């Protein structure tokens, strides 16, 4: 009896000593085998139980089992601690330098004009305008005649045009899409026409190719007030804040009345008399527009006595320059990679 108790006491003491000395999972495993393995100290004691007098066996058995359970618990606990220590060491030994550059390709770059074009289209889609596209090589009829710019009109002075030998031309504005779309869809109609346009001009502020965006709305009882509302909403969305607007009478052969829109200077809001962007005027000219001339509506196959509407055109390049703070127009079309990459955070 007492000899078993004493033996268990010794085993437990030995175990405690050895387990605390184990410093790796291998050593711990050896300890486990030494006590709980087939020839382990606890196993051997269990085998001895059969030789004990029957009345002492239950108590002795309980004591041995209890010791085995304690040993197992201690080993599991120790194993968990050793695993944690070992995996931490393993992880630390495979540390990487997170400041290394990423693998593979660096981010690309957006072109400011393409980005703006898509942004503006999204804004106008929200106002119910659908995209309409047209050819860049255009017929004289759609580019001039149908827009109320007959041969004899002085406005042709304003637009020096690229021609092809067969008499077709590179469209000088996106307005030809107006008539094409009216002929195809009739009224009411709300369209937006983005695209490249061309003029025989090249100097630091003019490029022979630039990007325009035209809007057209034809419906019943449309007023100049409706046009103002659309344009102000568009400008506020482009520049992400409401902007003061100023409307100036102007002249375009295809609208009557014709109006130009100035917005408050996005750089100085009219507060800097030396501002480079607005030249101290406080205003930026951003759109030409007007109520569609009845002749143009008629060319579009729509009855101007029932329907009227408005159209506008904006220069996307100029607005992109204003929005993104660019200074040179032509560099936009020269595929300047370092320049375009400098705008990555756009």
């Amino acid at each position, binding site marked *: 009896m007492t000899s078993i108790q004493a033996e268990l006491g010794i085993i437990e003491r030995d175990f405690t000593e050895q387990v605390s000395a184990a410093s790796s999972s291998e050593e711990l495993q050896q300890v486990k085998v030494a006590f709980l393995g087939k020839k382990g100290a606890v196993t051997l004691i269990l085998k001895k139980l059969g030789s004990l007098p029957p009345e002492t066996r239950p108590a002795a058995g309980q004591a041995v089992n209890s010791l085995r359970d304690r040993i197992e618990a201690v080993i599991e606990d120790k194993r968990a601690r050793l695993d944690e220590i070992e995996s931490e060491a393993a992880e630390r030994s495979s540390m990487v330098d997170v400041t290394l*550059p990423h*693998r*593979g*390709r660096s*981010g*690309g*770059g*957006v072109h400011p*004009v*393409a980005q703006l074009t*898509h942004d503006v289209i999204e804004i*106008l*889609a*929200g*106002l119910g*305008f*659908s*995209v*309409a*596209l047209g*050819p860049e*090589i255009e017929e004289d009829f759609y580019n001039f005649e149908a827009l109320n710019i007959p041969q*004899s009109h*002085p406005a042709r002075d*304003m637009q020096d045009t*690229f*021609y*092809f*030998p067969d008499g077709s031309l590179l469209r000088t504005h996106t307005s030809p899409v107006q008539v094409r779309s009216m002929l195809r869809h009739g009224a*009411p109609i*709300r369209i*937006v026409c983005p695209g*490249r346009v061309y003029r025989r001009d090249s100097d630091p502020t003019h490029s*022979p190719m630039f990007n325009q965006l035209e809007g057209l709305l034809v*419906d*019943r009882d449309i*007023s*100049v*007030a*409706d046009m*103002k*509302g*659309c344009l102000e*909403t568009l400008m506020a969305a482009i520049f992400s804040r409401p902007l003061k*607007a*100023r*409307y100036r*009478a*102007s*002249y375009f052969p295809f609208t*009557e*009345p014709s*109006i130009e829109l100035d917005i408050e200077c996005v750089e100085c809001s009219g507060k800097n008399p030396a501002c480079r962007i607005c030249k101290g005027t406080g205003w930026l000219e951003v759109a030409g527009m007007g*109520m569609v001339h009845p002749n143009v509506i008629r060319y579009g196959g729509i009855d101007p006595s029932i329907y*009227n509407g408005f159209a506008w055109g904006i220069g996307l390049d100029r607005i992109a320059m204003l929005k993104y703070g660019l200074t040179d127009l032509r560099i936009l079309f*020269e*595929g*300047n*990679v370092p320049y*375009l990459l400098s705008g990555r955070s756009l």
Partner: protein
Amino acid sequence: MLISWNLLNELLEIPATLEEVVERLTLTGCEVESVDYPCERLSGVLSARIEELSPHPARKELFVATVDDGAGRELVITAAPNLSIGDVVPWGRPGTALADGTVLGVRDFDGVRSCGMLLSAEELGVPEIADEFGILKLPADTLPGEDVKRLLGLDDAVLDLSITPNRGDLLSMLGVAREVFALFPGAVWRKNPAEARPGDGASWPDDLEFRGISLEDDGCPLYCMGLVTGLKRGPSPVRIRVLLTLLGMRPISAMVDATNFAMLMLGQPTHAFDAAYLPAREITVRSARPGEEIRTLDGKDHRLESEDMLITSGGVAVAIAGVMGGENSEILDTTENVYLEAANFDALRVSRSSRRMGIPSEASYRFSRIVDARIAETTLEYIFSLLEEWGVARAGYRVLSASNLFLENRVVALTRTKLKRILLTDDIEDASAILSRLGLTEVASSEDAKSFSIPSWRPDISIEEDLIEEVGRIRGYNETLPSRLPGSLHEHGDIGRTTRLKRDIRGALISRGYVELVNYSFLSPSFVELLRLPGDDQRARPLQLANPLSAEQSMMRTTLLPGLLRSVGLAVASGWKDPVRVFELGRVFLPLEEGHEEVERVCGLAYGGRDPRLPHGPSDADDLFTLKGDIQSLAEAHGVRIEYAQGEEPFGHRGQTARLLCGGKPAGYLLRLKPSIERELDCSPLFAFELDLAPFEDPEPLRFREPDPFPPVYRDISMFVPVEVSAGEVADRIRRLGGSMLREVGLFDVYSGKGAPEGKRGLAFSLAYRLCDRTLTDEEVDSVNAAVRKGLAASGCELR
């Protein structure tokens, strides 16, 4: 168009400041681009009489003048040789500022102290007005002590107006004064230069009698001829010379200045012929004969075409109508008698002639924008009155004229309905008041409509919308109208397939590290050579512009690649050394048998960089297959199936070029550039793809499949195949052999080099077998897989 603020105020009493007028003009359609104060720094110059004049005691090139400005006499030293006692001249006392900002003081000239300076036209800031070398002489009746700046009108403000092409009527002081009159209801006319001052109507002297004017060209509906005799040589009055200068014209002589000044005032160009040199006492206006020649008064020779209109006399061309006079009858210093033309010419004809001949004269500019047909005779009479007032000639003879002019009385109606629809106002009385200040006359009126007669100087007004524009612009679009959103359509707009596709593709490529470019649609002819395109290649025959700006921009692009190559080339030339990818979305213009088509494309170009060292090793570098991955990501995102076939392009590496096919049709290429092109551009390696967007616009609809309930069974097959057999062909062969039970074939290894038989490479595929209604047994799979292996072996694959 330059406008003198002083002169405007001589014509009109304006109840507003300069700033208010500028603002109002700008908002109502006549944008004031700038306001210039030409002699802003000039101040303190007074008129003074020369009382005594003697040579400088020590320096013979100088004079000592005693001058008096009414406030006292002083000595002033001058080098000018043109002075006499009694002349009234501009004197700058010490403290006076010259036009260039110099402030005068007292200066000692070898013992004589000069009190300030006597001044020349140049020192006043207007060298053009000098009529002789030296000190500017003021009119003899000028009192001493007057402020010369104000006296000469140098205190003026010059407004630069941007006149829209429909408003030819604003190309004169008269027109602008009419506009300002309409803009400010309190304005009152002081002096309307259009109010004719009829001459005495005397008959022409016999020796200058004119036989006739004949109009043989429809482009000249009206031709008036006046006569000036006894012309004296000499300048126009200094005040006129100042005005001409401020308004951008050079003073020349009294006669020329009178015609120019009249044009600036009334908008009607005129032309003066020396009566002694006009070939005959008759004028015929006719179309030029093709090839006919004339030397204009600027000494240049012009070959004419039939669209040009000529003024001829005795069969000799003496002027190009509305453009420029001929040298043969030009007025000179010696001219005594002048025939003076004031005519009306067709705007388009003049505009085309002057543009074709490159003569942008003041006259052609005005005729191109339509001159008021009723002002011609008035202009001659205005010039007569100027010449008489200046005392330089006898004028005022009866004006001769010939006319085919039919001036209809244009009447346009304005309705309350349309006024309300467009401007949201039904105040037709207010509208009528605005129109009448613009010179329109109400000729009929009812409850809901009014009709107006349109004055001859406003040919731009012909329909009701024109009247509404006049009312709208004068009322102003800012305060009088609200801003509102039109509400009759409510659906969301459709951005359309092409735009959506382009948006998605650019997003995908940008996130894959491509830089977006927008290049010109033009190409230089050299691209054909750069891309080694043979003559029969469609891309080598681009559409050509008839009037390009330069050869470099003379062709419409047939491929997007040259633009991208140029951009990368420029970047490299400017020191760029890293790997870079660029792309462009845009149109190419392809010539067809008849006409052309515009095709939307995307093109990508990857450059390996001058310095290929990468922090994670060379496996990060681009090659044909990274670009293939980019194309595949676009294709898969849009449900488009692209096939890749070994192919050739004139500019492609002969071993690394793929033709792209969609549904069996050519859709583009993927390639490495030809090594010789890489060398030429000094960029290597260069990989590129160009793809039509059309297949993407009509993709297969997205569909999902039920997951397979039973697990697949995998088998690997590894083999050596001849190098000329593509992996794609072998995979297709496996698919055919495997039948319906074989669901997936994946290539997982390609091996060539040591251990591979000569002329062969190793390929290893993983095959997935599966049925959808039950689990396959190993025996079934082995049996099919054995058949696949057997089939492959039979077709020349060496199985391992």
